[in-house]
């Protein structure tokens, strides 16, 4: 159901890792859509394939991972739609998209910042690659950008090496690098996990501002359901390489349709819960061995609604439960799962 407003459309993407022990289906048939100027939140179990999916978009999946099927259609600035899967990962075309039209903030800053170059050199390199400016101009853009991401002492930090600054400062350096090229699509993989909440609020504000200024779309992977609730319009929930639920943030939080989403919403240590003296609930069991995917519904081994029959035999399809809200559960229509409270005023409205 793609329309002229769609900037990215992933369809039935499969990315696998062949290892001596067998094949890991890290991304196992993911489909999703991102519209211009919107923020899509992506949540899911640790290890469910979020980062691999994001890396697939930019074609930077590390060896031995490879895309074995599906398409990733990206609409470029000039209106051309390209299937990223079909491009040669080293081609000029893809390099002109990466960093310029699509920028990525990586989950672990240390794994993507070079330890032997200063923060400034790395940002400047990114800027001169995509903009026709001199090194001196690029340097002042870099310092300005560091200031915008709430970095203290930007004039000094610009000349420091990644190991000389704190975890959250590294994360901000990477955000500055990604945003310095005014991308149309920002892929943010856990961009604020290393930040305190006041700094996080500043960064989220900055992203919102750039979003309205450049009509930038954002794919926002985070484990923080508070950030999802406050920052995104649409949410995609993943489990074992697949989308298990997708919908508007309000629908999905107040009336989840998949038992896994329901479990997530009830595992959050919310402020004020301590007084209740409760132990945190978590979803029982752990993610199954990726080499031995469960039959039927991949979540059945941990699901309290498993019927022991259809759930074990038949894999549910992702289907629309109501307009704009889809789920991958045989009983999505009938479970009546409880989400977070919807205030009375909002119910009447």
């Amino acid at each position, binding site marked *: 159901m793609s329309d002229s407003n769609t900037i990215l459309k992933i369809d039935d993407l499969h990315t696998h890792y062949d290892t001596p022990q067998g094949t890991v289906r890290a991304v196992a048939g993911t489909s999703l859509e991102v519209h211009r100027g919107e923020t899509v939140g992506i949540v899911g179990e640790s290890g469910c394939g979020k980062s691999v999916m994001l890396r697939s978009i930019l074609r930077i999946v590390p060896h031995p991972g490879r895309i074995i099927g599906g398409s990733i259609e990206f609409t470029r600035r000039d209106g051309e739609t390209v299937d990223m899967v079909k491009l040669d990962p080293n081609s000029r075309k893809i390099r002109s998209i990466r960093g310029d039209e699509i920028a990525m903030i990586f989950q672990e800053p240390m*794994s993507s910042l070079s330890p032997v170059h200063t923060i400034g050199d790395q940002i400047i390199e990114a800027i001169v690659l995509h903009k026709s400016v001199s090194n001196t101009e690029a340097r002042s853009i870099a310092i300005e950008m560091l200031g915008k991401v709430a970095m203290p002492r930007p004039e000094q930090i610009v000349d420091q090496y990644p190991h000389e600054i704190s975890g959250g400062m590294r994360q901000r350096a990477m955000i500055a690098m990604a945003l310095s090229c005014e991308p149309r699509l920002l892929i943010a993989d856990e961009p604020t*996990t290393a930040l305190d909440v006041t700094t996080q609020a500043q960064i989220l504000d900055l992203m919102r501002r750039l979003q309205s200024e450049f009509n930038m779309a954002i794919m926002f992977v985070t*484990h923080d359901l508070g950030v999802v609730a406050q920052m995104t319009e649409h949410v995609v929930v993943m489990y074992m390489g697949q989308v298990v639920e997708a919908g508007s943030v309000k629908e999905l939080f107040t009336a989840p349709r998949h038992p896994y989403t329901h479990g997530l919403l009830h*595992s959050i240590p919310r402020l004020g819960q301590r007084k209740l003296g409760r132990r945190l609930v978590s979803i029982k069991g*752990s993610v199954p061995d990726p080499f031995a995917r469960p039959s039927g519904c991949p979540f059945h081994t941990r699901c309290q609604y498993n019927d022991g029959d259809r759930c074990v035999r038949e894999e549910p399809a992702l289907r629309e439960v109501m307009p704009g809200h889809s789920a991958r559960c045989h009983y999505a229509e009938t479970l009546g799962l409880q989400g*977070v409270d919807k205030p009375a005023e909002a119910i009447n409205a």
Partner: protein
Amino acid sequence: MSEHTTQTATPILSVRQLKKHYGGKKPLFGPAPNPLRAVDGISFDVIEGETFGIVGESGCGKTTLGRCIARALEPTDGQMLYRPKDEKEPVDLARLKGKALRPYRLDVQMIFQDPISSLNPRMTLLDIIGEPMIVNGLAKGAEVKRRVGELLERVGLRADHMSRYPHAFSGGQRQRIGIARALALNPRVIVCDEPVSALDVSVQAQILNLLQDLQTEQNLTYLFIAHDLGVVEYLCDRVAVMYVGEIVELSDTERLFDKPLHPYTEALMSAVPEANPYSVRQPKILEGDLANAVNRPDGCHFHPRCSYCVNRCRTEEPQLRELEPGRWVRCHRAEELSLSGASDTLVEGVEA
């Protein structure tokens, strides 16, 4: 009674006037530049078996403090008095070096913030977790494999993962490898630096419950550094709030979240994003220049960003003082201000 706590229990660790400065050495010519005061005169006690939380702005010195305590860094000045298991007299970890430090080093372990840079990419999990056990004579032969498998399963990974290398795991899975490694040496104190921030909420709940169970079983003491105030409130008995290298507030968790005494703590709590799209918090925005650990403002180091700042704050530096039993604060106006707690700023029924 000891400083900064009213508990009568003997502390397992007493940190006194701890400092860690970077740079500031006098060059051959010219005057010495200002050092970066990452940790600047921090004192607190940790009671055996408690979870002591440390929160604060990114870059305020939490990791530096944690690394000093685990002796992954050498402090510039100050004391860290640690009370070993069967010894009456505390030893000063800040002073010990090399061989003399060895026996105590095992007792204090650390879960590192950035898992990828703390795991050797050329070692399998078996080596990463098992080697320190062998080196320190805690296990040998087949026993090593068995224990590594056990530890991996405790942190929610699989025993058959032990032949894999760190890069074959997701961010959250690597974080759990770090937790397994810290547990392998039977420590008494664990400095947990953002141990659950890379985990989804369901695995996070499992790990937090695991940390609690281990604490009860083995009487472990945790220093718990985290940005997620929901997690901190849930897990910690007491919390220290840091701002540019110093403690600005120290309190038991309940009173801290209910009614903070320092304006910075109030701002922090008001910025917590609520996990409900129909509720928002009214943030107490921090205006003004960010904290700068090289050139700290005169007077109260927080004053340029504080909305309660008066003249005295610009010139006179407040000291950390005990306002109520067990509640320490570094603010001139703490008695007269009535600050908002975590739930006071929450507005329900307003769309995010």
